[in-house]
């Protein structure tokens, strides 16, 4: 059966197929490779004609210098702190909220569903302004709590966890009840271990989104020393524009961790993305 499908969708020939794939790969990966090669060739003028695509020599001087001049450990630490808080908050809140939606019969269930779906449909272009006012009213400007809170609960994650909890047999909850465990203990000890795949997907998607977010941290945090890496990058680009090699090295340092994480976890990641269509 699959052979038939393959026969139809297979490109005209292997050669043509690989040629198209390779051209597309150059288009999608070329900019990264160019940046990498520039960052590895200190002293070479990147704005010279013709520009360097492949490095003619390799030297880590740019990396050493930019590490010296810019407090990377601090920015990376800031980013990790924000990402960890955000990821944990998202996981906990999605597991708490998605659990009864999958397993409980309760009053107001359809109301909650309507509420969640409505929040997904109604567009809000004023969110940034009202979030700013809310965080200011809470006295959280300049704090990481203020950075994380607005995105700590996400409807998408809640639905994803509900979907995962649906796959857990209801008898497990009943058996916990017979043993006299409280609802919370059942959730914590019996249920959470069963939904690890869903937790992994949320952890991954949220980790990436916090790692890459730059605008909201700039809005909330008053002091650039508190910035995460992505925000710091926009700010440093202005400061060090005279030394392009540094900025290139800094950019590579900032994107490398996320690309590595993605390469090692892409299977879970893709599951999460396709969950977005089916959900």
């Amino acid at each position, binding site marked *: 059966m699959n052979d038939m499908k393959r026969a139809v969708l297979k490109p005209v020939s292997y050669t043509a197929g690989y040629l198209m794939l390779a051209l597309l790969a150059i288009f999608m990966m070329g900019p990264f490779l160019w940046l990498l090669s520039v960052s590895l060739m200190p002293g070479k003028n990147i704005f010279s004609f013709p520009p360097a695509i492949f490095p003619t020599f390799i030297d880590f001087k740019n990396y050493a210098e930019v590490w010296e001049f810019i407090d990377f450990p601090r920015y990376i630490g800031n980013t990790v702190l924000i990402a960890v808080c955000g990821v944990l908050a998202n996981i906990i809140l999605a597991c708490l909220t998605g659990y009864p939606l999958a397993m409980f019969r309760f009053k107001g269930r359809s109301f909650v569903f309507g509420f969640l779906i409505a929040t997904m449909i109604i567009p809000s272009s004023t*969110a940034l302004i009202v979030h700013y006012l809310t965080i200011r009213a809470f006295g959280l400007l300049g704090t990481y709590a203020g950075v994380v809170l607005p995105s700590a609960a996400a409807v998408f994650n809640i639905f994803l966890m509900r979907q995962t909890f649906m796959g857990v047999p209801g008898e497990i909850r009943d058996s916990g009840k017979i043993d006299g465990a409280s609802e919370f203990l059942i959730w914590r000890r019996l249920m959470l271990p069963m939904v690890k795949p869903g937790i992994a997907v949320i952890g991954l998607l949220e980790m990436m989104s916090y790692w890459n977010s730059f605008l909201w941290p700039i809005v909330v945090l008053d002091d650039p020393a508190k910035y995460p890496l992505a925000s710091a990058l926009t700010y440093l680009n202005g400061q060090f524009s005279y030394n392009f090699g540094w900025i290139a090295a800094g950019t590579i340092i900032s994107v490398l961790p996320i690309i590595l994480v993605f390469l090692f976890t892409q299977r879970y990641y893709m599951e999460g993305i396709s969950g977005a269509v089916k959900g």
Partner: protein
Amino acid sequence: MRFKRLHSDTFSAWSFMAPGLILLAIFVVWPIVYSIPLSFTNYSVIGETKYVGIDNFVRAFKDHNFLISLWNSLLYVIVVPFIQVFSILMAILVNSRLPGISAFRTAYYIPVVTSMVAVALMWSWMLSNNGLVNYVLMELGIIHEKVGWLSSSDTALYVLMFITMWKGLGYYMMLYLAGLQAIPSDLYEAAIVDGGTRFQIIRKITIPLLKPYVFFCSLISVMGAVRVFDEVFVLTKGGPGTSTLTSSLYIYQEGIGEFNFGYASALGLIVSILIALLSIAVFKFNQKGGVNPY
């Protein structure tokens, strides 16, 4: 007994959901609700806040910059069909079983997971006067002199659209790939038995069956296009002049930059209504398309 069980379920269900629902209420519902009364006030850092009726809306439609920003945001929707066409072609390409195909899928996806800041900066260097893009295009004979892609008001907005598209292609490709793989293979078998050509099969089977995915992807990319912000903020800040001033950027400048919360809310409300109308348009367009695939 049964009633009691339901009752206790209700209590614990709401206890579980309370933290999440409260946060959603504060950070998702409240911004929508609060922006309505806010947009009828002159709330800002200076002066006394008072109700000003529809003044903000009258001002908005006389505000030259806002009208330009709306126009630019609408213009940005041009990117949507390009994204769909290219990502569907990419999905068809990577749907083959060639050895090593998953490495290509991964490679095409990497721009999606990279931060927009890094992507935008990277492209701005490549698009600079003496950058790689000018060099390649001149070598290929497509252009004859260097083009200031981001510094010219004729090209800047389109260059930003290109960057948006480049970063998003892998994402839409994966969505369409999921769609392609959901098409039952006996349809293809039947088509082959009936002597269908490859082109006919793509046109009569693949495209119609992909329609729900086209709809979903168009919808999210239209919303993304109208609200485009990151790439504009990092690269052009609306310039040169107002050529890349998009409505999200203008709302940001008025709200967070100038602290004109009331006026910025009114602008946001107008844009939200616009997005809602566009979404309805996508719905209608999708319905009109004819054949129901299932």
